[in-house]
């Protein structure tokens, strides 16, 4: 399946991926409105690691054998059998953080405001992940089966 991969060599550490991730998961889908109007801005669904000069963002790998899905105590974490996308049903999630415990990528983020797991859904609604679309240096790519650098 197509996943988001990072070419850390050309990640400029601007964190626009985070800005657009928030925007993409906001009510308004508009940067300005997401930041200015939403009383509680969405939690970003990506992890950014930085230890200058190296930086990169990391998104859920949507593992074939996703441990978060198997370990979820409520059944909130599901892998779509057709698209392979792993999503968290935040209505079911109780914030037990078992997924945080088992995700080897550390790619599941705790939305502490809502006490639910927050994770990359590949911007399922928009078609293309917002972080990839808005990366100013093409450091993020949306591709099938890994990348070679």
């Amino acid at each position, binding site marked *: 399946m197509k*996943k988001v*991969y*990072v070419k*850390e060599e050309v990640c400029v550490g601007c964190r626009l991926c985070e800005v657009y991730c928030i925007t993409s998961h906001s009510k308004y889908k508009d940067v300005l409105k997401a930041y200015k109007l939403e009383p509680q801005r969405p939690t970003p669904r990506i*992890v950014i*690691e*930085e*230890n200058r000069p*190296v*930086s*990169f963002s*990391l998104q859920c*790998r949507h593992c074939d054998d996703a*441990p978060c899905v*198997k*370990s979820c*105590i*409520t*059944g909130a974490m599901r892998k779509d059998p057709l698209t392979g996308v792993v999503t968290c049903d935040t*209505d*079911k999630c*109780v914030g*037990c*953080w*078992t*997924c*945080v*415990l*088992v*995700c*080897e*990528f*550390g790619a*599941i*983020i*705790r939305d502490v405001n809502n006490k639910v797991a927050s994770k990359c859904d590949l911007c399922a609604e928009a078609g293309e992940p917002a972080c990839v679309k808005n990366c100013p240096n093409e450091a993020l790519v949306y591709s099938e*089966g*890994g*990348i*070679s*650098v």
Partner: protein
Amino acid sequence: MRIVIIGNSVAMVGAVEAIRKYDTSSEIVVISDETYHVYSRPLISYYLGNLVSEEKMIYREKDFYRKNKVETVFGIKAISIDERKKEVHLENGDSISFDKLLIATGGKPIIPPVEGLNKKNVHTFIKMDDAKKLKEAAKPGSKAVIVGGGLIGFKAAEGLHHLGVDVTIVELADRILSTILDAEGASLVSQSLQNDGIKIITGTTVDKIIGDEYVKGVLLKNGKELEADNLIIAIGVVPNVDVVRNTSISINRGILVDNTMKTSVEDVYAAGDVAEGYDMLVESNRVVPIWPNAYMQGEIAGYNMIGINKSFKGIFPMNSIGYKNTNMITAGITNPQQEEFEIISKIDHNRRSYKKFVVKENRLVGFILINDIDRAGLFTGFIKNEMDITPFKKYLLNDDFGFIYLPKESRKAKMLDLEVV
């Protein structure tokens, strides 16, 4: 082919989902003494504390059995197995024959031999019915004594506290959560409970239950007496192996299984809290009664029952639990006493955070994270993949620890799905 599964919890779901991925024709029969649609056992404390509704405890959609073509035999207990005739006997006298059998009967509470157990409002706390009964009995302002400060007792305490019950935990060990936490960790967590008025009494246990028809209190072994309207026995669970007694299926503490989840008898499998499988850290068989383990073992059993050879790499204990805003994640060996283990730890009282890593021969074998739990899975991964942590060991305690501290090549291999040579 008919596959019979005894037990209707997560190991069953793991098995059914694995089977139906490849096999849509075999018959699947699930037997359970409970009558509920498959629900989440770990959520009973949330249900008790009114944090989730009964509706939300459903672990898989309403059409789970229909969609997966599963025949259910609910509300009837399987009492014995005839492994030669390949039959399961039910308490109503019926028998169900099988080609493959999965025993996923879970655990049952340990009941200590104490006087007065037959009084009303003495509870256990592992099933839905336990939670319902307790919720009914626990009135706001009433007093409850929980015997056992382990995972079950801890979660029961939280649920009861949410209901406005005055809770006292009585723990025989010198600290609560002694199986997963060390003294530092336990003291941090205890503090959160005590700040909310939950009392913790350690180093003793119940000697006698006081009361007439109903529980009125307990007498502790240290001579102290506690008032109690409800008493919750939460000492622990043991594998529920009743159904395999008097069979040739080998049992130690639990039903012994190999890495395909097969028992000592052909075509009979076991998974979940009833099974005693391989623990990769202690390098021997062990019962690891945790939810993720049950799913994964069930899944492996499912595959193998339909002839798909998959083996289980092994498991190790891991838990993510919390009390209100105190969250903790632990895995593996967390409190070793032997000298061969190296301990790397940091406690921050201001942030109420604690991090402890247990290292053996350049491998991470366990950790405790309290309140700083983000990205805990990275460490679980290091344990599971038996990674040599030498290159980044000195950074483990960093607040921003992540792949960034790994050598570039291993980081990229991991993140980019590259083939690791």
